[in-house]
């Protein structure tokens, strides 16, 4: 504590910051290296083919939006379990406004609007009336699903491609087909199947070839959110409402207003995630097409320790496993080796840090999964579908103690309680 009073503190702060940033980069590169190794050992090039990465990006985007929505709300101290409901509302909004507005981008705005309405309900209940955040969120999810089912049945049956539970044939937002010079070169390198370099090339190729503009917007939104929340006075005040609203109030911050703004943005982002599902992931709207992605987004955010870089990594992990299970069954089997190696690597890391209990648990788990990999030829499809959920449980079980959520997250706050 006392060292920070020295004039050299700025350099210390920046050093810590640089270390933290390097850490995320290190984890990402390490993960790619392990994937690459598994790909070569098991001879499953589909593991990082351009097609797989493209599918992974499409699967990631909705989860990422939900996670980002969760980040906004929780950084302001409001737990938003209602992301799922807001996302569902977004799917209907995207379909309705795309059809009647004649432009998918109007649909995206419609999705944001509908999600925002869900966010408004949550904000009124939790901020103004101080209802328990989880209770309100559960109710929002009920209302979201009910409203969407009802609205679809009431508005879509008479439309072209519509039915009581669906509206298909919607236009997609445009896509970038090719970036001259980069796409082909990256594709060529990817096809060489070299260690590590081809995997990075696959990534670049997928990001520059036939990628939806909405995906790019979504990635931009993550960067924008990170900038707003951590680099602007507005963001600082918003986060102060999540850490210590009483202190924020004494400094003249209008806590209710900031919480409202945060939850509205949260709902809008989740809504856009729903819109992505209806406009890009599939060719139209279906009742219940979110399939719990709002919850997964919430898990990705926790996985990412309430930070933009972390939640991006979390969403990519979920998106990747989600994409992989729909592709080559052989690739899924290779995933087992990947998980086993990952666990063993973590076990070694714990051993180095002298955390023996954790090291033994993870070592045993890793060995068990390695045995499973070596003794079988394929993995039942249902088990593959479980992967994201089981991963989340593992990550939470192993990492919860190292996560730090905003200090006043989920605690109802009343104006004037600072005394």
């Amino acid at each position: 504590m006392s060292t920070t009073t020295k004039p050299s503190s700025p350099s210390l702060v920046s050093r810590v910051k640089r270390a933290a940033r390097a850490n995320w980069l290190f984890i990402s590169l390490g993960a790619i290296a392990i994937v690459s190794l598994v790909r070569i050992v098991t001879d499953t090039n589909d593991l990082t083919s351009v097609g797989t990465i493209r599918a992974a990006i499409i699967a990631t985007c909705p989860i990422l939006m939900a996670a980002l929505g969760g980040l906004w709300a929780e950084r302001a101290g409001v737990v938003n379990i209602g992301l799922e409901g807001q996302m569902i509302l977004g799917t209907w909004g995207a379909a309705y406004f795309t059809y009647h507005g004649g432009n998918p981008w109007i649909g995206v705005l419609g999705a944001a609007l509908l999600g925002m309405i869900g966010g408004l309900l949550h904000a009124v209940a939790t901020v103004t009336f101080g209802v328990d955040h989880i209770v309100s969120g559960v109710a929002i999810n009920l209302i979201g699903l009910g409203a969407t089912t009802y609205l679809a049945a009431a508005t879509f049956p008479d439309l072209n491609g519509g039915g009581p539970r669906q509206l298909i044939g919607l236009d997609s937002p445009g896509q970038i087909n090719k970036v001259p010079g980069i796409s082909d070169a990256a594709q060529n390198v990817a096809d060489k199947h070299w260690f590590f370099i081809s995997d990075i090339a696959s990534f670049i190729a997928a990001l520059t070839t036939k990628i939806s503009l909405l995906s790019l917007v979504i990635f931009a939104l993550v960067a924008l959110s990170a900038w707003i929340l951590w680099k602007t006075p507005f963001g600082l005040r918003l986060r102060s409402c999540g850490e210590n609203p009483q202190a924020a109030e004494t400094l003249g911050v209008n806590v209710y207003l900031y919480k409202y703004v945060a939850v509205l943005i949260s709902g809008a982002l989740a809504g856009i995630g729903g819109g992505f599902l209806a406009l890009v992931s599939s060719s139209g709207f279906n009742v219940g097409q979110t399939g719990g992605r709002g919850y997964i987004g919430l898990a990705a955010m926790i996985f990412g320790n309430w930070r933009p870089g972390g939640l991006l990594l979390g969403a990519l992990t979920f998106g990747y496993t989600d994409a992989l299970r729909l592709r080559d069954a052989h690739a899924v089997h290779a995933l087992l080796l990947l998980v086993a190696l990952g666990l063993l690597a973590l076990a070694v890391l714990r051993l180095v840090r002298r955390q023996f209990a954790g090291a033994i648990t993870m070592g045993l788990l890793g060995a068990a999964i390695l045995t499973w990999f070596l003794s079988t030829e394929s993995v039942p499809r249902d088990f593959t579908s479980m992967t994201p959920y089981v991963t989340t449980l593992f990550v939470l079980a192993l990492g919860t103690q190292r996560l730090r959520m905003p200090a006043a997250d989920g605690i109802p706050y009343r104006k004037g309680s600072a005394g």
Partner: protein
Amino acid sequence: MKALNLRSIGLALLAPAIAIVVSVLVTTLVIAAVGSSPGDFWSAMFSNPLPRLRVNIVNQTATYYIAAVAAAIGFRMGLFNIGLEGQYTLASYAAAAFGGGAYLSGFANVLVSILIAIAVGAAWAGVAAVLKTTRGVSEVISTIMLNSIAVFLVGYLLNRYGVHIGNSVRTTTLAPSSNVPGFTPYLARDGEIWGLSLLAVVVGVGFWVLLNKTRFGFDLRASGMSPTAALASGINPNRMIITAMMLSGGVAGLIWLPALFGGAGAYGTSFQSGLGFIGISVALLGRNRPLGMLFGALLFAFLDTQSNTLTFSTNVPPSIVQITEGIAVLAVVVAFEVVRRWRARLEQRSVGQKPVAATEASA
């Protein structure tokens, strides 16, 4: 004193009354907004249900009530068991698979199947409880994950060990001797009230006794109202979390059993999913009180069953009642919070007005 009692009863009923008014209002507005007639809707909803529907309402009330009690056991101590869905899915499958296997006959088969359902539900909830007590994982997230895992796990088991007929798959059907006889109030074609609906009565009475007449119930309520006070008075929080969670999961295991032994006969396409979330809603609506939840279960069962008639008499889609139910839940929790704040202010004022000798009467 008497006036005060009357007032507190009035205040207690105020919140549900507000909630009902709000949900009726919102439903009416939503129907009018898409150009349908709210009048037709309400007259269809409140028409006298046909005998067949009346039987359905009773059966669904029992099912919803069991689910609500399961949720309430956790809620009363501040545990959010969002995982009822996974717990009863897995438990229903286990009970159906065991019962269909016919290892025992008749009554013993039913009894052991029920015990298996309780054990499986409790064990699945126990995973979340252990993760919470040993690793500090929030039960909200872990139970949501366990819900999805349970669905895929059952899908796998069903595919692997189930009976495949055409495109559908189900567990082996129960032997007729294992069907629990029900009660037929009307004609046979109107259906029967499931025999195991009585489980709802057992669970409800048991919940009341547990809460109000046992040491454990006291500890449970104390932990819910003030975890710190509970800890200070010697209640072991970890033991409470594990017990309450497993109890909640065990009751959740019973949710679908009345239907299973009352006619469904096997776990397959007839399985009713979503009951876990309905249970959570009903528990919230009934404020986790045994009687309140009975009212909530009846209301939800009535709305859900009556909404099926909408397609015949109106152009309002039946899913409208899901909005009504969701709004009712949200309105009830908001209304209770508002009434609580209002009551606190009233009490403060009445304390302030009392002719107190002390100098500090400014509260």
